[in-house]
């Protein structure tokens, strides 16, 4: 999957040569702001709705139900193995729409830039957003830029909101999961979390693991084309698999059983977790979704997913069973234990 991620380089000509860094004036609303928008954002995100330059983007509605979501991205570092904050901001919002059963269409992008932020890094982020939007088939139709004093922000924060149109005839909700449903995940877990952890300053640790950031709307569409028997989907981002499963079990009032020996985990990721004392169940994913599928359709959904590069390592990792709202794991050695919500962030252990 990672080989297919578009690789950017700084060979693209920099449009603003006078300013190498973002200045407060870039957020002042005057000609420099306009310059930044017209030279960087417009040419890359180019589309009729955006270029109409209205105070709002005017969208075609249609008769379908609308899905609407928003998310802010403050990842540190902003460039990490396998991606950057820009494509994460597009993919994350696309995925939030897609797992709700919607077809993602329009994205907004608001940037909070710290004074002094290198323009070439902004350029690189914008290019990757353009490419991510193209891949996901969404249009960036409106946006905003603000600049804060040096020290008042941290390089760049991005907020994206997304609008999608709900697919007919499906109902995705945690309350819909049923005893017997199989739980499918479309590939290896914990990779975004490990990639971020390994690239943080001060951690003397190198890992070959790359972030799994990807837009899942195509894969999800293929699964939904195959069957209407998908009762619930969720992208297990922050808090990882364990937190998403717990949210679903609690809302759905059902017991979810997962099998430790079925969890897809790359050997390098397993090794990194062992070394750092982290539990992969709680590490973030950015290109994964959980699917709760009626038992009879599960194998078919699995085979459909495996044809897509983003689902080639898809697995059935568990099922919904009789019992009160909880998540339980059958361990490799044959015992079982509770898989709990995490409180706060995982802290690496001393020894």
């Amino acid at each position, binding site marked *: 999957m990672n080989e297919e991620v578009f690789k950017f380089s700084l060979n693209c000509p920099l449009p603003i040569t006078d300013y190498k860094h973002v200045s407060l004036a870039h957020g002042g609303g005057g000609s420099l702001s306009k310059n930044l928008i017209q030279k960087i954002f417009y040419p890359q995100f180019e589309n009729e709705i955006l270029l109409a330059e209205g105070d709002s983007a005017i969208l075609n509605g249609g008769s379908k139900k609308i899905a609407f979501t928003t998310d802010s991205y403050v990842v540190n570092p902003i460039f990490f193995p396998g991606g950057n904050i820009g494509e994460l901001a597009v993919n994350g919002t696309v995925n939030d729409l897609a797992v709700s059963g919607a077809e993602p269409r329009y994205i907004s992008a608001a940037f909070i830039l710290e004074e002094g932020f290198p323009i070439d890094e902004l350029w690189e982020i914008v290019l990757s957003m353009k490419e991510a939007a193209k891949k996901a088939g969404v249009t960036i139709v409106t946006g905003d830029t603000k600049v804060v004093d040096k020290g008042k922000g941290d390089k760049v924060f991005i907020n994206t909101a997304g609008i999608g149109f709900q697919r007919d005839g499906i109902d995705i909700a945690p309350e819909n999961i049923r005893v017997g449903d199989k739980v499918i995940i479309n590939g290896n877990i914990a990779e975004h979390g490990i990639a971020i952890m390994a690239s943080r300053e*001060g*951690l*003397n*640790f190198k890992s070959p693991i790359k972030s799994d950031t990807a837009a899942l709307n195509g894969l999800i569409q293929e699964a939904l084309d195959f069957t209407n028997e998908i009762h619930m989907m969720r992208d297990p981002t922050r808090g990882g698999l364990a937190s998403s499963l717990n949210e679903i079990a609690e809302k759905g009032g059902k017991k979810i059983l997962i099998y430790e020996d079925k969890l897809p985990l790359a*050997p390098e990721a*397993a*090794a990194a977790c*062992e070394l*750092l*004392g982290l539990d992969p169940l709680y590490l973030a994913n950015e290109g994964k979704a959980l699917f709760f599928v009626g038992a009879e359709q599960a194998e078919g959904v699995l085979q459909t997913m495996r044809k897509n590069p983003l689902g080639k390592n898809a697995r059935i990792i568990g099922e919904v069973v009789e019992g009160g709202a909880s998540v339980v794991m059958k*361990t*490799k*050695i*044959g*015992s*079982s*234990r*509770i898989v*709990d919500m995490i*409180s*706060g962030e995982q*802290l*690496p*252990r*001393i*020894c």
Partner: protein
Amino acid sequence: MKYVDEFRDPVAAKNLQRKIKELCTKQWSIMEICGGQTHSILKNGIHELLPEEINLIHGPGCPVCVTPVEMIDKAVEIAGREDVIFTSFGDMLRVPGSQKDLLSVKSEGGDVRMVYSPLDAVKIAANNPEKKVVFFAIGFETTAPANAMAVLEAERKGLQNFSILCSQVLVPPAIKALMNSKDVNIQGFLAAGHVCTVMGYWEYVPLAEEFRIPIVVTGFEPVDILEGVYRCVKQLEEGTYFVENQYSRVVTKEGNKAAQALLQKVFRKTDMKWRGMGVIPESGLKLKEEYSDFDAEMVFSTDDIFADEPEICIVGEILKGVKKPIECPAFQKECTPEHPLGAAMVSSEGACSAYFHYFRN
């Protein structure tokens, strides 16, 4: 993963489970000293695989849990100073002092940083000559050599802005204190594999003889622990009491001589206060006088900081194995991982936290 998967093998685990069941004719109480083992036992559901006759007692071997409140208060005091960069292993950051934890100091503007190695803290000191850089040097014999190395490295680099807040503790004196205390009922020990990797197990031979108790040096994977329990039960059933080495793929009787030499060069033994257990003679390590320039307690004169533990918390009895976390009146009520009253609820190695996550109903 090699050297891990073999020790999580379900067939090997089943075999050991069967052998323990066949062997066991009486009630036996066995203490795993180390918090890493407690975590593994609950995470892997090993307690479920053992016959009812075997009572595993979770010992005081979690460095986060036994660090006294006043050391945390000292850390909080130092970390709050403007001229300080305070560095620590991750799971110390949320341990509550009498007022607050290190994460709160960070949110109030203190420069508190998580590091994976004390040597990283030395690098931070070298890169920030205008700041005083302090590393929170806690732990058992396992972390002590790296902390000694950090002091020597800072000395070699001529750094005058690096110091450690030292709360190092030692396992054998704690075993002795436990066995001498009236209210404990421990018949066998699983000794901590990684501590013995550094120290060897020669120190445990006289303990096994003095207290007529089997001690099995044990690793951390499920099959390691089951085998440790098996060997311990076998000795108990046969009435023998010697030191056995289950973790022989890593541990030798002599241990790591180079690491031991480092400890002797830099540290001296001292009486040390343990959270929940009080002062245990000769159970801690402090820097020798010639290294006192690297001793944060000297540099920042923190001698006047004292603190008591919250009254409701029964961490002392838990660490001595007299009570289980679920017998604590505060467990899962006033005391949760979000609002820990005692340190055993904070670290993932702490018995209370392990119970909260894996064993709760």
